[in-house]
């Protein structure tokens, strides 16, 4: 499927027509995942992350994004897998998610960023009811890429501030008892 592949650099002009079906794919423990390109603001090389004490494991810490302090989520831990090890190819994908009242910018730690893919609407499949490696409500759709599938994530669910805060509280409560 040659037409599905496109270089990382997306030309501004034709972006509007294609954005609907463009995705940024990345690897996590060897498996391919994707965010909708509209949610991705930029991709950073892994730099120094400041740990924040008393937070759940999947909160990697905070980074300085041109003067703004933004949280970084270790996506592998968030999915309940072993935390990603930092390597030369580790990246932080800056994602904008819509919360109840406003939008929040969150960094997502991934093993490596692959490419921007264009996936036609009719190549999308619903999430399997079971058998996926992650919680099914995190999956917006499965994108068919030839023989393989890419898991297209629901950014707002995966990076829900409310839920992530709750996880921290539940853990605190568990520790107290």
């Amino acid at each position, binding site marked *: 499927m040659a037409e599905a592949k496109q270089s990382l650099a997306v030309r501004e002009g034709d972006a509007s027509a294609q954005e609907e079906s463009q995705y940024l794919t990345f690897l996590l423990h060897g498996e391919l995942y994707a965010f909708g390109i509209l949610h991705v603001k930029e991709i950073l090389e892994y730099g120094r992350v*400041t740990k924040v004490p*008393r937070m759940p494991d999947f909160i990697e810490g*905070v980074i300085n994004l041109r003067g703004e302090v933004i949280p970084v989520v270790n996506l592998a831990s968030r999915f309940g897998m072993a935390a990603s090890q930092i390597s030369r190819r580790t990246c932080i994908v800056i994602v904008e998610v819509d919360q109840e009242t406003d939008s929040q910018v969150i960094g997502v730690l991934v093993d490596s960023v692959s490419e921007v893919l264009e996936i036609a609407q009719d190549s999308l499949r619903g999430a399997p009811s079971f058998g996926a490696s992650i919680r099914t409500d995190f999956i917006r759709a499965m994108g068919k890429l030839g023989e393989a599938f890419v898991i297209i994530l629901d950014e707002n669910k995966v990076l829900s501030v409310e839920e992530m805060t709750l996880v921290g509280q539940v853990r605190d409560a568990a520790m107290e008892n």
Partner: protein
Amino acid sequence: MNMDAALQTFFSESRELLEQMESLLLQLETLDEASRQESLHGIFRAAHTIKGSAGMFGLDDVVNFTHAVESVLDRLRNRQLSVSDALVSLLLQCRDHIAQLVDSAEAGNHDSTIVKAGQPLLAALQSYLVAGAAAETQAPALPVSEPPPFERLDSDDVASSECWHISIRFGHNCFRDGMDPLSFITYLKHLGDVISIIPLAEFLPTVSEFDSESCYLAFGIQLASSASKQEIEDVFEFVREDSILHIIPPRSRLQEFVDLIEAMPQVDQLLGQMLVTSGALTENELQRALQLQQQRSSSHQPLGEIISSTNAGIQPVLQAALDKQGKVRDTLVKEQKSLRVDAEKLDKLINLVGELVTAGAGTSLLADNLGDSALNESVSVLNSLLEAVRDAALELRMIPIGATFSRFQRVVRDIAHELDKEIELVINGAETELDKSVIEKIGDPLTHLVRNAIDHGIESPAVRAAAGKAEKGTIILNAYHDSGNIVIEVSDDGKGLDPELIRAKAIEKQLVDENAVLSREEILNLILEPGFSTAEKVSNLSGRGVGMDVVKRNIAELRGRVEIISQVGQGSTMRIILPLTLAIIDGFVIGVADEQFVVPLDAVLECLELKQQPDNPFDAPYFNLRGQVLPLIYLRHCLGVEGRYPARQNVVVVQSGGVSAGLVVDCLLGEFQTVIKPLGKLFSKVGCISGSTILGNGSVALILDIHGLINTMTESEPQLLQ
């Protein structure tokens, strides 16, 4: 000038003036004679300006009502009426009514019910006017205009005309500015009767030069009015700059000169000179006249003789009047020296300054590493300038809490009246400055607390007398800075909170278990729980069981907390403690392993070395600080920092809320101008971190919340014992 924009300015200005009016009215009763007179002038000016501007925009409802208020105020300041409690209350109501009228005008609807609501007020005002008028017939007629001496001086040489003569020549750009000359003349009718209007055709250009968009209108107007010169002048306020305006008081012998001069070709300049000689003019008119005098020094020679012959006796009066006007102008200038700026622009500036400070820190770090002395010097100059810019920028956002506090004068007054209680409000620390965003959000919780204090706290005078207390209750509003926090207190000397009663009520409402063991503090804090109310009967002010929990929630949103201190029979104090959510603080950087943290410098008392001794191992729970027991907090453990232990550790002695503790850290890195970056909602539950900042090397450091840290340690203590 765009009329729509001008209208908006009018609305916001009116609100400011109304606020000013309110605070002045509230002070009236407490002031001595001299300052009271000053306040009355202030109130009158405010009402007058509103009326004048409203007239410009044809807001007749506002004009009509304000006119009545203004008349009473005028009698007040002329001492024809005396200040009384009832009158002040009436004027306060009138003020509210004007505010309503202005609001409805802004909403764009002509609401007759609001106008009707003003009728009783108008009637009440009328009674003051009538009563005063009776008194006036006995008293000698009082001059109406602000600088009165001129008219009386001239009274021996009165012209037959009882009218003001107004000569107005509108500026050429009048139409382009969106002004309608007719509206000014129409508005003059509010001041009195326009007897005649004579168009002056001298200024019309020839047809070939005539520009249809320019305004060449000039009028001579005869006005029969009791208004002061200033009032008439104010009518033309919006066109003052471009227009040439002359107002000649009635009964002035000037009138003769005017008649004489109007026939002359250089009408305006000569008229100006005439006015100088009579003294019936304002400073800027005189200035203009002087300018013209210089321009045409040769042509007005004969007139100069007239001046010298006529004004010999008037000169001192003129000088005094000019001095007085100069003073008035000075204070006006001072009052108006503020500038309206969009809050968003300010936020943007603060953000930029924050980034600038961070970038500056990075640059000085690099310069340090390079070791070039010239570069270092220039960087240090740059940094000191940066600091100055930062301080100035932050100052912009800081507002003294005084304005918020004084709003409560009215609240206390009104509610106390309603409940037949005597309450005095004392304000301390009005100059304490808070970040604008905090001030905006603190109003509602404060209102709740003050209302509660009036309603539940202060007893009725009879009960107070029986308890041996002064009949007049006191509510104190206080604000101060305390180790990086801002503390706002609402205290009353009322009946206080009864822990037993609260406990019983809480059990009744099933908020706590009957057998629960609670400390006094915990019991008092129960009143902050949702659904709790101790008032035995519900009043229309408070006692519905909502309120205190809202206060708690609002304060929590500001990341602050509420403390309650109370003694039965002696009163209670509600203490709101807010963090400085302000953008920049002085911080003290400490290092633990590879991590760096910032402690607010205000909280730091001293730093010591933690000596390792055989009987005092690294993990001793406390430290001997000059004979005092100082509990230690090992940040390494507490914050879960991993890394090698250093050869020696240090103790930073910190204090918060009266509790001292020692923070055990690896190294002390010194002071740092800390730009606070909020950590966002995700981290809102982290008790011991209050925010973050960006260090010179671009990495993020967390700011420790000392109070939270000590609390966390205190709370975890019992668990360790188990």
